[in-house]
């Protein structure tokens, strides 16, 4: 047993933070929060506080990375040293590099990179405060920053995780649930298209549990998608 592990994760149908198994934490999204960036977004998701900025399409440096037929999309996921309990050493670690990669691949399918050959579209994601689920929060923020920058996209990309704690499938793990739970399954989708752009998983799902968790995560994505659309309407109007 690890230090700090709770005895039970679900008591009387309620999780430790009072949520029901299929309930999201509170999510707040705002776009256009940074002045210099071409597009930006701020997302608060439970205790996560994440900023994303989009620059581009712009000239590619270093030049050899440029592609003659399309823009390159580059994503950088970074955690502030003070975003977590034990100070995180600044700079990219292996986890950040992997998350940057899967974030890029989660967004690439919706961006019309073919419209901007020989350019780069850069997205920077900064985790200011972390409380489980930062990669999903980052993808949500990044997709909003791209939209805010006016980059042509097929759709927004919502992301959400489901998992298993105390043998139960739940949506959107909290930090305690993430640290001591049995499985975590982050998913990102293109709504309305039945396309999964990100799926990762660690832990243990028995036969059947995976399908249940996967469907729950997709439902969570759809809820996030509504919040994303609202945030854009709030900034730019439209019914």
């Amino acid at each position, binding site marked *: 047993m690890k230090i700090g592990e709770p005895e039970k994760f679900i008591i009387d149908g309620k999780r430790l933070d009072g949520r029901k198994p299929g309930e999201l934490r509170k999510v707040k999204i705002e776009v256009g929060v940074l002045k210099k960036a071409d597009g930006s977004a701020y997302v608060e998701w439970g205790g996560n506080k994440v900023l994303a900025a989009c620059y581009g399409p712009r000239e590619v440096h270093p030049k050899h990375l440029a592609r003659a037929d399309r823009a390159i999309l580059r994503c950088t996921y970074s955690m502030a040293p003070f975003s977590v309990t034990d100070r995180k050493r600044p700079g990219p670690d*292996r*986890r950040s590099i992997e998350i940057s*990669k899967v974030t890029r691949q989660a967004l690439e399918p919706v961006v019309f990179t073919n419209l901007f050959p020989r350019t780069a579209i850069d997205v920077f994601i900064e985790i200011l405060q972390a409380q489980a689920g930062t990669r999903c929060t980052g993808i949500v923020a990044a997709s909003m920053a791209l939209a805010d920058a006016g980059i042509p996209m097929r759709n927004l990309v919502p992301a959400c995780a489901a998992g298993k704690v105390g043998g139960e499938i739940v949506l959107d793990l909290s930090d305690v649930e993430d640290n001591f739970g049995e499985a975590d399954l982050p998913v990102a989708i293109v709504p309305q298209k*039945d396309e999964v*752009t990100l799926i990762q998983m*660690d832990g*243990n799902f*028995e036969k059947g549990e995976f399908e249940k968790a996967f469907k729950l995560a997709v439902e969570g994505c759809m809820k996030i998608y509504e919040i994303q659309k609202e945030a854009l309407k709030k900034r730019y109007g439209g019914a």
Partner: protein
Amino acid sequence: MFDIVADIKKDFIVNLLRSKKRVDNRAFDEYRPIVVEPGVSEKAEGSSLVKIGNTQVMVGVKLAIGEPFSDMPDLGVMMTNAELNPLASPRFEKGPPDEDTIELSRVVDRVIRESKCIELEKLCITEGEEVWIVFIDAHILDYDGNLFDATALGAISALRNTRFPKVEDGRIIYSEKTDKKLPVVDRPVETTFAKIGKDIVLDPVLDEELVLDARITIGTNEKGDICAMQKGGDGTFTQEEIIDLVNKSREKSEELRKLV
């Protein structure tokens, strides 16, 4: 340069798949011939050489004594690292690990760790002070696609023949191995599928890997539980495809498990 060649090849491979054929004439759900040679290194505490077709990966396990993590004072420590050595492919460059190398290490680490196949609680020597540290190092020797499955298979095979070295007065004598085996209680493996156009194939060969739209690696344990998953590539899967591949992975991983 490679990418231009890949673009030209893509049409060819996609059309071939549409007519139900693969570049090397395999069935869509067929592995290339797999060879697992455990115990290939005398210096390592455990080792294995895995060949999947022309892909070759050598995995070595070294044991050391060190401090546990502060939040897990009574558990041993495991670390997985992969090296994409430039001798293995013209596509690999020397220098610090790039994102593909890091992803490979982490996805292989995930299935070993999450399957709990190493009984880390048995690696505790003095709680909070000394535990065994298991270093899993994978070296790619020849790259012809599907490094995930080859490396994961090599890792579990190497772990299963890992024996503790002799310890005298708290010091390890690496030259003398004991008969005591590393406590490994499961045989997790990973299976990787590539989606190219509309078709999905198991165990992509390099040519297929270079043109794939999306990739998914699924790790399972002996019970058939899913322990790890990673989607890659700039394309997408449908929900149905993923559920279908999870079930296929359970089936195909049995073929791999027989080899270790």
